[in-house]
């Protein structure tokens, strides 16, 4: 549990676990109750390969919501950042002169940058025109939809990254038990998951042990005290919204490739808002987000999930369960002046 965010931690954790259990068991029960004939499209569990990319997508979306949340900002512009990342990556994917692997890497990088830019635009709009970030985020999300549709390309398989093992040190090449062949294939899933986990642990460590992390926690907990302690609240919120936007934009870029796109299409709400579900089920902590991303990646790939989501009666109930933890987690996670004030605040200073 991150210091400074520990109110009612165990109760919320229990409620989150119970909600997820209900979700997992409920969807299977609904699928069995539907007694649908065997439908490979519905029941197939594409565990091989794509679950890693689904996990990566959910992890980055969770971080995309969690990082600004620590600075006291509700990143409801996550959908705009996601679509911006998707659009820029799609534009790059249309350039035939770049090699497939380079194109994939460049598209992911550019997608992250586009998401970060949207985050920065949201804070810029607040500073320049006093437009609240919740409002600008939702409006930008709506505005990005036609852009993303126009630039959209058909999903393609991700190119494999192949390395010759002969380039590695001899000790590793001949190490017993590794079982690696000469051409070592590093999948994008492993690469991006490593990046996501590294980012998550780095963020948690910075938050806990560094002076800028301490400033960030002050901003998230009490902006008035942050201003009094000499912390530049806008700068901190801008950096966190840009970082969160980069995570969302990267996930958007990832949707260009077939495997994660097919799996994540099952998400019953606009996909980027999966970030809220992951962050809230994770209790607003980095460790929680990692665990929640893994659980939901498993859940979405589980046989029966698609059948239950397709049910006209139970589908909305399942979708509701995905956002239910907001009820008990958001009031706990927002700055201590309370949710309404955090949502609609217009200034950092108020009279005593």
């Amino acid at each position, binding site marked *: 549990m991150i*210091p*400074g*965010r*520990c*109110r009612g931690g165990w109760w919320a954790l229990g409620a989150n676990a119970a909600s997820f259990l209900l979700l997992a068991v409920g969807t299977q029960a609904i699928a069995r109750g539907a007694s649908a004939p065997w439908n490979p499209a519905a029941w197939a569990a594409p565990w091989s390969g794509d679950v890693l990319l689904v996990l990566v997508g959910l992890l980055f979306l969770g971080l995309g919501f969690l990082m600004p949340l620590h600075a006291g900002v509700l990143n409801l512009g996550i959908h705009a950042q996601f679509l911006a990342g998707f659009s820029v990556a799609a534009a790059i994917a249309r350039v035939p002169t770049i090699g497939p692997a380079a194109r994939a890497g460049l598209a992911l990088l550019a997608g992250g940058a586009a998401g970060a830019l949207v985050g920065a635009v949201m804070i810029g709009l607040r500073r320049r025109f006093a437009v609240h970030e919740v409002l600008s985020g939702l409006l930008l999300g709506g505005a990005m939809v036609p852009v993303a549709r126009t630039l959209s390309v058909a999903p393609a398989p991700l190119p494999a990254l192949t390395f010759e093992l002969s380039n590695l040190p001899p000790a590793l090449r001949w190490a017993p038990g590794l079982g690696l062949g000469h051409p070592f294939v590093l999948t994008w899933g492993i690469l991006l998951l490593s990046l996501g986990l590294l980012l998550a642990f780095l963020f948690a460590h910075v938050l806990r*042990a*560094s*002076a*800028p992390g*301490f*400033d960030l*926690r*002050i901003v998230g*907990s*009490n902006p*008035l*005290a942050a*201003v*009094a*302690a*000499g912390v530049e609240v806008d700068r901190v919120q801008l950096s966190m919204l840009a970082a969160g936007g980069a995570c969302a934009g990267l996930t958007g870029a990832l949707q260009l490739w077939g495997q994660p796109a097919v799996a994540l299409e099952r998400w019953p709400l606009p996909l980027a808002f999966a970030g809220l579900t992951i962050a809230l089920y994770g209790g607003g902590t980095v460790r929680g987000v990692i665990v929640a991303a893994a659980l939901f990646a498993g859940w979405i790939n589980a046989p029966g999930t698609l059948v239950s989501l397709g049910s006209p009666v139970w589908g909305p109930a399942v979708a509701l369960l995905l956002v239910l933890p907001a009820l008990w987690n958001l009031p706990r996670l927002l700055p*201590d*002046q309370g949710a309404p004030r955090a949502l609609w605040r217009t200034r950092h*200073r*108020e*009279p*005593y």
Partner: protein
Amino acid sequence: MSGPKSGLRVRGLTIGDGSRWLVKDLELEVKPGRLHMILGERDTGKTALLESLAGRRREERGQVSIGDSSEAAPRDRRRAASFIAQWWQPTQLTVLERLLLAKPPRRFRIAIHRAAAEERARALAKRVGVETLVHVPVEALRPLERRLLELAAAVDESPALLLLDEPTSELGPHEARHFLGILRAVAREDGIPTLFTTTWARDGYPDADGATILWRGREPATVSTEDVTESALFERWTGGTMRRSPTGPHTAGDALLRVEDLVLEGRGRETSLAGLGFDVRAGEVLAIVGAPADGLHLLHDTLLGNRAPQRGSIQFLGKEMLGTNRRQRVESGMSFVNPPHARDQSLVDFTVEENLILGQTHRGPFARRGWLKFDSIRGNAVRSLTDFELPDAKPRERFGRLSLGARQRIVIAREVLRDPKLLVARSPAQGLSLESQEYVRKALVLQCERGSGLLWLSEDPEEALRVADRLAVLAAGKLVWLPVTETLTRQAIIDEMSGRAA
């Protein structure tokens, strides 16, 4: 008199909060048209008592009757009582609109009858003396005027019981007296039994008919103000523990802070600063007393660096401070202690040790190359808690779990251990327990004896008298200097604050 005939009767009222009793076996009777004061420190259950009487909080046991009913259920009390809370967000409505919120006169039951509405609002406003302000937005009013406005709006609902939670907390003593005088007149005229809470014994005189003292962990006591003088009431409340002055007088050294010709326009109907000038010297306590709306709040804001004056200069150690922010001022040797309930000086969700390093993590000794030094932070917390006599507080304990007095001690520990050249304290003991008030005063004055200057800004003349080496009253945006002698009385200060001095 149009109010209830039997007033308010309370029998054996007991209110709990978690595992402790807030109010135990309270017996009380307030006749129609009478004004009754509930006196107590913070966290002694004053607000809980009012909430219970207003039917907003469930009591453990006891009986409450209002008017002719033998026992009023919470739902009946919610209908019968009018409750004015201590804090609320001022609105952009005008006084006229605010007064018509509850029952606007209508034409054909649809449209608001503008002429009748204005006439009615003016009549209501006249009752409390704000009839000239009917077109002024509520947020532009002074705190006293806002209180009077809320009183007028509450009385308009013809309540059988009027309850006010700390109505004088943001008023100067002269304003408090003015407000309580009007409250008493209105209560008498309408025959409404009226209760208000306060942390100042002086508020009972001359207007309240009776006072109930709430203590933490003791049974409440009710006395009549006709039978008991203010000093006797104060003695009974405090147990005679308060002393006049913890230390001093002090020998002043060189000037640390020099404020010259400070001019700053107030917001709304707040009094502007009109060419303020003073200096604070090393090793002395300068107390400036005034009502918040008479410029004290503006002066404090300016010293904090939150507002830039239109004219004037603030020099600290010979260096101009205008244009610098609070952090730069702190780094140059100033330190600030705000009222205990101020939200900008501590983090309730953080631990005690984290609160002790607030604003000090950008240079040693608590951080190195951007990383926190946990050993130094823990050592600092252990040392601070020992030095400031808080043996029950733990470094890793959540700050919000501590009592208000303990929290303020920790804030003072943080500010004092920086060894500042100048301490600016704004009502640092307001609303604390009497023991904590004494401790806060002593801790700050001791720092002054180590050579720091201490600027004490307060709306409470008694508090200023206890600590001041020099004293000035801030009235109408200007300073009036009063010599600190044995003969200087609270009344003399209040007279200067209200402009009644000869």
